[in-house]
């Protein structure tokens, strides 16, 4: 048996959450998804296997969803009547060479995807540069197990443009991205957020605290730049310095600290000052550099 048409579906599935009245073929130039299938059976079948396809072709919850193919591509009557073909009938193809402006194309998606992670799409970094949703997502088939991504993984998808950040995962000091334990969306929401750099949490440190709650404090003794941003010292995308530090120790610390009693030219002649450079360098003594709750921990040594 063939899949139910949108017009049939509501009646056949009384457990639908809401009553649905999809447009009839006569409405505003719509022809119905079954007509589309007549010529685009391969695409139709692939789409029907997706979560969105099941929803729109079989179990629509709203009139919009019930429009099936035309819910996104626009009314197909003119396209059909002119015999079909690429670009015929003014349909939105979402292809790279689609003449439909990007914001119009994206508006099709955001009509439904307008809450949760998508609430702040308008005005976001990607939206404001006219990045099409279809740069990252392939809607018509289950190309990836989740999220219908355009590339095999989230990292590859983001890496299309963010090559530097993608390659940073190869560095000797990195979070477990290339091992598949994290991905870009572990920290970022590419659809827009209220935070900087499209971070999922409201501010940078809160993003880090999601996994590193031990750094959250508040501590008795506070290292002020730590409180302001973890990224003052760390590059979370990966680094060639241990602990994803932005600059090699001890120079990183010395960019802010010229304390007395701490020799700064410590390699080669002065053996006693090796301890300021070798191993964990400054952290050989200042172990609790993220903050200390010890009454005598003002220098983060306790």
């Amino acid at each position: 048996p063939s899949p139910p048409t949108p017009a049939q579906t509501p009646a056949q599935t009384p457990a639908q959450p809401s009553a649905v009245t999809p447009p009839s073929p006569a409405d505003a130039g719509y022809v119905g998804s079954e007509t589309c299938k007549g010529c685009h059976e391969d695409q139709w079948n692939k789409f029907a296997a997706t979560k969105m396809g099941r929803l729109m072709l079989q179990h629509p919850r709203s009139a919009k969803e019930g429009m099936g193919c035309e819910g996104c591509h626009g009314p197909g009557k003119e396209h059909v009547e002119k015999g079909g073909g690429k670009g015929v009938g003014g349909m939105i193809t979402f292809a790279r060479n689609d003449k439909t402006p990007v914001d119009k194309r994206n508006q099709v998606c955001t009509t439904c995807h307008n809450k949760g992670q998508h609430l702040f799409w308008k005005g976001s970094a990607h939206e404001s540069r006219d990045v099409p949703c279809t740069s990252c997502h392939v809607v018509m088939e289950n190309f990836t197990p989740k999220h219908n991504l355009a590339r095999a993984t989230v990292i590859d998808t983001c890496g299309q443009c963010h090559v530097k950040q993608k390659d940073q995962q190869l560095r000797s000091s990195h979070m477990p991205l290339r091992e598949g334990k994290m991905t870009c969306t572990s920290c970022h929401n590419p659809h827009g957020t209220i935070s900087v750099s499209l971070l999922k949490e409201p501010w940078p440190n809160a993003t880090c605290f999601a996994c590193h709650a031990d750094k959250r404090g508040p501590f008795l003794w506070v290292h002020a730049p730590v409180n302001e941003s973890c990224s003052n010292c760390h590059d979370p995308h990966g680094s060639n310095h241990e602990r994803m530090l932005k600059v090699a120790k001890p120079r990183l610390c010395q960019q802010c600290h010229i304390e007395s009693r701490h020799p700064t030219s410590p390699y080669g002649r002065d053996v006693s000052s090796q301890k300021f450079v070798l191993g964990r360098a400054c952290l050989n003594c200042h172990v609790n550099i993220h903050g200390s709750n010890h009454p005598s921990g003002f220098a983060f040594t306790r």
Partner: protein
Amino acid sequence: GTARAGAADDLMLGGFRLSGEVEAGVREYIERPPESRRAKFQEYEDMRPGFFLNYLRLSLQKPDGMYGMDLYGTRWGFDDQRYEFNVGRLGLWEMFVEWDQIPHVYYTTARWLATETGRGIFTLPSVRPPLAVHNSAPSLDEIALQTNRGLIGLKLTPTPDVEVTTSYQVIRRDGNRDFSMAFGSPGNNFYGILEPIDQTTHDFRVGVAIAREQWQAQFGYTFSYFANANRWVRADNPCFSGTVVATPGCAANDFAAGSPFTGQTSLPPNNMANTFTGALGVNLPLRTRINTAFTYSLYLQNDTFLPHTINPAITSPDLVLPQRSLNGIVQNFIGNFTAVSRPFGSLPLTLTAKYRIHDFQDNSDQITFPGFVLNDKTLEGARRAGRWSWIRQNADLEGRYQLFAPAALTIGVDWQRWDRNEHREVPVSDEFGAKAALDVTPVDWLLARLTYRPTFLRIERYNSAAHAEHAVAEDPVTALQGQSVLLRKFDEAERNIQSVTALLQFTPLDRLSISPTFGYRWVDYIASSLGLQQEQAWNVGVDFAWTPVDRVTITASYSHERDTSKMRSRSRPVTGTGATLDFVDFDWVSNIADTIDSFTLNVRTTLIPSKLDWIVSASYQYALGRIDNSNPIIPKSGTAAQNLTATAQPWPAFEDELATIETALRYYFTRSWSASVFYSFQTFRKQDWRTDTLNPFMGPDAVWMANDSRNYTAHIIGASLAYRFGR
């Protein structure tokens, strides 16, 4: 496949269509890195040889697609196993469960004489051996951490425009990290030890979203609780056991009477966070949309303080704690407002305005301690623990104009202000910026994005004594030894930034895309006599994706990055009277440069349709770090010893290199059965003078663990069998 219900080739189970896939195999090493070289190799992975169940995917779905359940698991039984399960009714509800394990091996080279007699209690022989004996200490198996994360959640969509989500997550961490403990100051008599990790984080989230055509609103609450089973770590002093006996390798002061024979350091306290969020988006006339959001979070911490010291030789009424705990309270308020409008009908001009405020208020008690004990060794004067509050505001205005069909120009200005309380050096700073961005699509197969952004940070005043003023109570000598008045900390210093980014996307064919990228950033710290002077970073990269025929997919990328910075500092000796010497000729300059090249390649090809696939992926990364030190003027103003200390020394370069190749052939016997053989190669090489030659004992009164990441090479072969059922 299609959604044909009950088709003849469907595998049915209890009215559900069943499908899935399982793959198991065996892995063996041609060359396995020895235990001492495995740290980087198995940093986040369990790479045991032998049998493995690589993955199992199981899917049950009603023929009409309405109800479904999915189970996915990978690397079953290994320390890095992961499972996902979800069940739900299409478009109405979904329950999801996740279990993920992440090992983190830090080091496998540590040598250590101490024994852990209780959790977080590290003891040495009661008669401390000469420090050189630490060099022949037994090896530790590994310094590693295991993180296990569990998540259960529910998403309800009672109507398409209402969504309710709730989840509970627990993160458990067990293991050790490298740590150390000082028994003197500055920088002498320290011992590399372990930080015991037994930490649990509980997160509970609930959120509601309502979306109408003209407005959307959502609210959320998150409760997070962090519990640490270890509040402290104790370690024996390798130089002193309580009896005044000279320990070879230690300075006399290290084993003087009254020195600590055991020290105690605090570990992260329990804490909790409550976070409330609210957001509203409204579509207004004139094609205008506003988004507004707020977040209020409350961080709380009230763990009982440890005593100043556990050294019984140090007693003083000044060490009576003024209160038992911090009463730690930090309030975060974050407000956001965004308006986007295209108000002028057919004029293709989009205006965007954004404002954001983050008010970080640390309302914890500000405690003055009448005295404190430096590293369990020296009784010192009063210290005051300041609270660090700040407000950060950002405002952006930009207009985007569609110049003509294929080109859009964005012009914008922005402003960032930091208001910090009096404890930081700069109470107020303003950073003004501008932005010009051009997006051009001159032809179907080319997209160009270019962004130029200058910013200028200016401050009202820089108080280099701000930190000391609040922290060092009644101790003017120590205050004088604080920061140089010439220093400007880089995060607060006046600076000019110029940055350019460019992205080109060539798509000459439907299935070919080539995306070169370029980035350049120049930072000039214009008023920093000492401190960071300049930073320059540039990178080029290219992403390549090509599917010449259906059977072949090639993706590749290359990037080159060079980050340089120049800093100027000063050697400042302290005399026996406590005076700090400030000689101009004791200045030194450090030019720091990191150069990194990265390359990746992935090829998937079907050699025989429906029969034989070949996959190969490779990556290569090389990083070179240089720190070149010099003195602008030859140091002559001090004593011979001081001059020598102030003389900049050359530092060798450090570098690391990683290369990986993985390749697999998969043969499909039938639609259901397939087998693969694979080969994997990894090699890692590094040179870092700061750790390569590290012995536990290297010089006076310091004992490391000699923990280091070593070079490795691994060759792995294996075979697997996969069975796929259903559709």
